[in-house]
Structure formats: structure tokens, C-alpha cells
């Protein structure tokens, strides 16, 4: 019943204490662009997007995936938002993998982020 799933590509942004050169959407798009480039794909080839982020209060945006839908090429596609507290990065990968293993989608973009400099997160 369970299908196989593989990692096609990975991407991450440059990590700095404050990324004042990009918006939240710009930061996420940077990682997404790098991942699809690594996979030899384009965002249009992605069937579904899973966003991991915890907690919303770090950026001061409630359910930021709604605002990020355009930047992640998710409009017209399934978009899931995972929040499992400190485990959210790993859990995002697990959910995306499940969607492929379940046979629901072929290519899923899993993206997790923090832009803590948007607030006094700590």
C-alpha cells in the first residue's frame, strides 16, 4: 500500500541574525528556489506545498502560509500548514513524505522557516 518516497532536491537560505534584505515571503522563496533548482524542477512542477512554522507569534503573522501562498507558487494547489512546536522542521518533512507515500501527490515542496528578527522572538 505504501509508495516509496525520495528527496529530489534541497535548498536553504543564508542564515544570519537579521535578514533585513528580504521579506518573510522573500526569505521563503529563496529556499524554495534553491530546492527546485537542486531538483532540476520549477515551482510549477510541484503538486502540493507543506509549510512548517512554529509559533506564529515569532513573526507576528497569524497562519502566515495564507500570505505566502503566492510566493511559494501554491495558489491553485493543496497547501498544508504544520505546527508541532520545536519538532516542526522534522514534522514538516514527515507530513510531506506521507502525502507521497499515500499516493496523493507526486512532488511535494516541504518548507520550514523562522524569521525571528521580525519580532523580539526571544
Amino acid at each position, binding site marked *: 500500500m*505504501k509508495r516509496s518516497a525520495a528527496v529530489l532536491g534541497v535548498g536553504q537560505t543564508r542564515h544570519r541574525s537579521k535578514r533585513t534584505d528580504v521579506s*518573510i515571503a522573500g526569505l521563503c522563496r529563496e529556499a524554495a528556489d534553491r530546492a527546485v533548482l537542486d531538483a532540476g524542477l520549477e515551482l510549477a512542477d510541484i503538486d502540493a506545498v507543506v509549510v512548517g512554522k512554529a509559533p506564529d507569534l*515569532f513573526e507576528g503573522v497569524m*497562519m502566515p502560509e*495564507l*500570505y505566502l501562498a503566492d510566493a511559494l507558487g501554491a*495558489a491553485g*494547489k493543496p*497547501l498544508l500548514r504544520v505546527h508541532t512546536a520545536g519538532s516542526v522542521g522534522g514534522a514538516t518533512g514527515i507530513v510531506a513524505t506521507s502525502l507521497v507515500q499515500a499516493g*496523493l501527490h507526486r512532488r511535494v515542496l516541504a518548507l520550514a522557516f523562522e524569521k525571528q528578527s521580525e519580532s523580539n522572538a526571544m
Partner: protein
Amino acid sequence: MSVPEVAVVGFAQSPCRVREDATTSGVEMLVPIFAEVFGATGLTKSDIGFWCSGSSDYLAGRAFSFVSAVDAIGAVPPTMESHVEMDAAWALYEAWAKVLTGEAEIALAYGFGKSSGAELRRVLALQLDPYLLAPLWPDSVSVAALQARLGLEAGRWTEKDMAEVAARSRAAAVGNPDAQVSGAVAASDLLARPYVAEPLRAHDCAPVGDGAAVVIIASADRARELCERPAWISGFAHQVDSGSLGARDLLAVPSAAGAARAAGAGAVEVAPIEEAAVEEAAVEVAPIEVAELHAPFSHQELLLREALGLGDGVAVNPSGGALCANPMFAAGLARIGLAARAVMSGRAERALGHATSGPALQQNLVCVLSGEAS
């Protein structure tokens, strides 16, 4: 590939009320409905292979708020568990995927929201673009009012049409003890009342109330053991639209129409993977008899009926719908639960549950349930 058989076998929801006795952790609302759904199915906590919940930190007013809700389950022994910061209808979707992988045979999705904890319409303004829109604090009722105004100007509906949706919903809710608002009222009387955010009056807007919902699903063999007439999930899909209010046509709901198509809500079933759909298509199925739509504003029911292709023969919101009870992050899951209940009770052969999220119907989910396994 045919759709592996998974069915809803249990549903419970708490009455939607402003609950002074319930905290933002959800525990006080969840414990009784877990007991109710376990009692009805004969299951216990140890039978659940995967738990998934939906709730919101911003609603609770603190970070990592869903962790407290795990007290309603008990964190020991460790369980396989996940959480979406969305309506729990999407938690059910994640749970469904988990059962499809074979990693769990029985999964439980729950959602809860103490919507009355703060001024909801202002809290929801924080869902908008944080740089360009949210600083202006366009609250959720005003955003919905813009959508309603567009429809009035375009001749898509009248204020009377909207009031008739509300009057019909309230009359239907008389038979639903979990509803927060109900009663016989004439649309003409509703139209005499003042605006909340023109052109919306109080009856056009969902009441603010606290509540929780739980749905249990199971793989085919277990479903037949647990339930005399399981509600088989024949299609389940969701989509999102642009988050930019100025960039999308607020009178079109492409994500709802797309989700309905992908879930096979029309006359033709489709398989989940697109390539397979070509071979699997053209299986004629029974029409949708009951649809529970998550429309927090009266005009949104009119938009959704059209987007989902629901004709006059479909019983829409026999529960009274979200206009009579809209516990945030639970109301969408409750729509699926109520649609499943219509099938499990034998009242419908095929039913549809819908959930929405985000400003002005930005994100939509459709679950189609059937009395017959595919």
C-alpha cells in the same frame, strides 16, 4: 490505482457557546467529546494509531498552545501525533493520508477554538499581508463585507437573498442542540435590523462561539467492525488561492471549485493521482444529497453553492451551518462529521463536507462521503 477504502466511523462535537468555563487549551471541551466518540465506537485511546489536531496560537493568545490540549489525550504512553495550524478538517486530511500509507489503521482528528477569548474579527486581521495590509487592521468582517458588496454591485445576490440564507439556516438549527443560534425568523424582519459592517447585518455573520469537534476514521476492515454503516471517504481534496485580496477575483472561488473537482464531488469519481484519473474516470455515482458548507457569512453560502456545483436538490446545511455555530478551527471538521453522520444514519447515500480558512474563502477543502465502499 483505486482509492484505498477509508471511512469515518465516529463523530462528536461540543455545543457551540461562549464558554466561561472553558480555557484556551481546549481540554474542558475535548474531554467530554472524546468520551462520547469512544463510547459510541467502543474504542479506547490505545486503539488510536495516529492523532492529529487543528487549532491556533493566535486564538489562544500564546505560543505552542496546542501542546496543552494533549492533556485531553494523556501524553503517556507516547503517541504518534501531529498538529496543523488550520481548521481541523485539514488535520483529518493529514490523518487520512496516514491511514492510506498503512502506518495507522485508526486515526483521530480533533479541533478546538475558544473564539470568544479576544475580539475575533481583529485577531483575524493578522492573517493578512504583514507589511502592506495587516498594519491597516482590516478586520475579518469588513473584508467579508467588501466581498458581499462586490456581489451586490455585480447583481449576483441581494440583501434579501442573504437574509433568506440566514433565516433558512436558523430554522434548520432548531433541531440541532449544538447550534449557538436558532429560531424561526422572517427574512423581512432580519432586513429591518442595523448593519454591522455594511452590507452585512448580524444575521449575515457567524456568531462568535467556543467549541470542539472530533472525527475518527478507520481502514476498511476496521471500519466494518466498528460501524454498522461507515461513511466511506470517496474523495478528499483541498486547494488555496492567492493571499492578495487585490489580486484575486473575490466573486470567484477557484480553490473551492478545484477541490470539489479533485474530490469527485460531481457525477464522476476521480482517483487521487492525476495520471491514474484518466483510467478511473467516468464511474457514475449517486448525486450529493446533503452538503454541509463552512460559510461563515451568508453570501459565502451562495458563492460556495455555485463553486461546488450544488443544485437545488441538495439539502444544504441541515444543521444550520456555520451561520449558527462557528467554533474556530473546529467548524470545518464538524461539517465533515455532520455529513458523515448523515451517511452513517442512512439519511443520505452520498454527502459532502466543506471547510474554509483564511480571509474571504481563500482556502477550501471538500470531503465526499458515501454509504457504499468504492
